[in-house]
């Protein structure tokens, strides 16, 4: 039953993809000779003017270009011409570093705030004010204080991924069932052991959900951050290819950003499943 449902859903997905590619192809193909002009002039004007071809690349152009990129993902021909693998690698490294720093701060801090009603109330106004600030608004301040564009990008990732993790950890820790805490209390379990053996496993699904939201936001923000700081990364690649007017490469980059984002989300989803317990 479920396998047949999966099969049918997969079939519908393929049909939809084929329809999308088909429409895209039809919309951007050449319509034949539109104007007659001298061959020299025609060469200058390009296919858009002579053959009625859309300036938007078709799926076949994008496919060919993508294949080219996939065959050589790690080439490095200088600052403005690096393989997509290298660019994605830079972005993933920045996200990974900023995110890891955020995990190291948010989870212990969230534990502290969640276990202490005093800290929870005292820090609440700060969190409420800091949370809605767009991470990119921090960029000038980061550039001015850190004086390094690459580290500033990591800082921006750090600041944007900390809030969902912090808030979810606080919520998860504060809402651990009273009866589980009471079990630990009647067994004279100390605070540290209680934190690790009762509160952490009980709050883990909520914490992991926060981490999953954070990685999504971090991946959204890195593209914009790299467009600003420049140099390397998939965000810089997108902007650079826009300056080169290579819409094909922009589309490829968009596709890859989506795929990498999905993979990051899947990894966190798997971790979440690992710590989720049925009740």
């Amino acid at each position, binding site marked *: 039953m479920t396998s047949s449902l999966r099969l049918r859903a997969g079939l519908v997905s393929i049909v939809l993809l084929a329809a999308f590619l088909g429409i895209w192809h039809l919309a951007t193909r050449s319509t034949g000779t539109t104007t007659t002009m001298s061959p020299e002039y025609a060469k200058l004007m390009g296919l858009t003017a002579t053959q009625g071809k859309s300036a938007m690349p078709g799926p076949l152009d994008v496919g060919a270009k993508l294949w080219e990129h996939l065959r050589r993902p790690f080439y490095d021909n200088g600052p403005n011409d690096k393989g997509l693998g290298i660019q994605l690698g830079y972005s993933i490294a920045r996200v990974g570093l900023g995110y890891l720093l955020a995990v190291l701060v948010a989870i212990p801090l969230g534990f502290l705030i969640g276990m202490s009603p005093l800290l929870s109330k005292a820090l609440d106004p700060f969190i409420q004010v800091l949370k809605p600030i767009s991470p990119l608004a921090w960029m000038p301040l980061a550039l001015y204080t850190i004086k390094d564009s690459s580290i500033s990008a990591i800082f921006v990732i750090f600041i944007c991924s900390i809030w969902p993790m912090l808030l979810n950890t606080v919520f998860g820790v504060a809402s651990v069932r009273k*009866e589980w805490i009471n*079990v630990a209390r009647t067994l004279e379990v100390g605070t540290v052991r209680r934190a690790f053996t009762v509160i952490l496993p009980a709050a883990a699904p909520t914490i992991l959900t926060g981490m999953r939201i954070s990685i999504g936001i971090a991946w959204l923000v890195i593209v914009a951050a790299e467009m600003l700081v420049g140099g390397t990364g998939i965000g810089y690649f997108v902007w650079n290819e826009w300056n080169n007017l290579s819409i094909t490469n922009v589309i490829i980059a968009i596709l890859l950003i989506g795929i990498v984002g999905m993979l990051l989300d899947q990894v966190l989803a798997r971790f979440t499943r690992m710590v989720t*317990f049925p009740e």
Partner: protein
Amino acid sequence: MTDKFISIEGIAKRYPGASGATTTIFENLWLSMARGEFACVIGHSGCGKTTVLNILAGLDAPSEGAVIVDGQAISGTSLDRAVIFQSHALLPWRTVLGNVAYAVSSKWRNWDRAKVKAHAQTFTDLVGLSGSEHKRPSELSGGMKQRVGIARALSITPKMMLMDEPFSALDALTRGTLQDEVRRICLETGQTAFMITHDVDEAIYLADKIFLMTNGPGAVLAEVVENPLPRDRGRIDLHRHPLYYALRNHIIDFLVTRSKTFTTEMSDHDPRNVPLVQIGKPGLTIAAGSDEPRQTWMPGTNPGLSA
């Protein structure tokens, strides 16, 4: 009183109410239990039974008064007093054995893994869960979950067991089996037990002493009823005992009518010397009188319950 293993001395519990007023759940409550005794508390919801149990467990602190266990005033929770929770409170991310082992390793912190496991296994077997050790609580029925709760409480070999309506969420058949188990285990290990219940028959079957509490707020311990049934009572012929219905009717009368009116009628009630009711013994609070026909109950006749 003779041996006071547990002595609750004048405890009160008050909560701050609206506009500075305080709500008193109960006050000046005195109660004592001997070692190895099984006591049940009966009373309507809101009379503070659970609060008394939580204070005994150390999960809650009284607003006034003290609790003395084995000659020492208690402060906070202790591994000497195991609690069996109404909602069984198992840790769902641990297996059956893991839940019991958690308690074992909390009591004996320097034991190695194998020793903890073997000890936990003994108590898992004791409650009849052999073969289900590696299941998670979500895979167990309500009765099996509560068995794990009992195994966890017993595994730390406490001085006393505190049970907060442990069987109220179970179906009648499972409840019966678990009552048998608890009774057997408590008798075998000489455990002192304090149980809250709503079930009159459960109290009669399990308890040596039944504490009757009036309605809250401002609840008092009205009477201590001594269970006249023999210690080696069996579930099947419990109701054939000549004093069974007298005892049952006394408790039900209390729950139905006297728990409401007790405080207004008994103005000379001394909370430090709560009357001890010994059913069927002449010259005491409950004379044979009106209960006589019920005591001569024969199979096949309707005992005429007042409830």
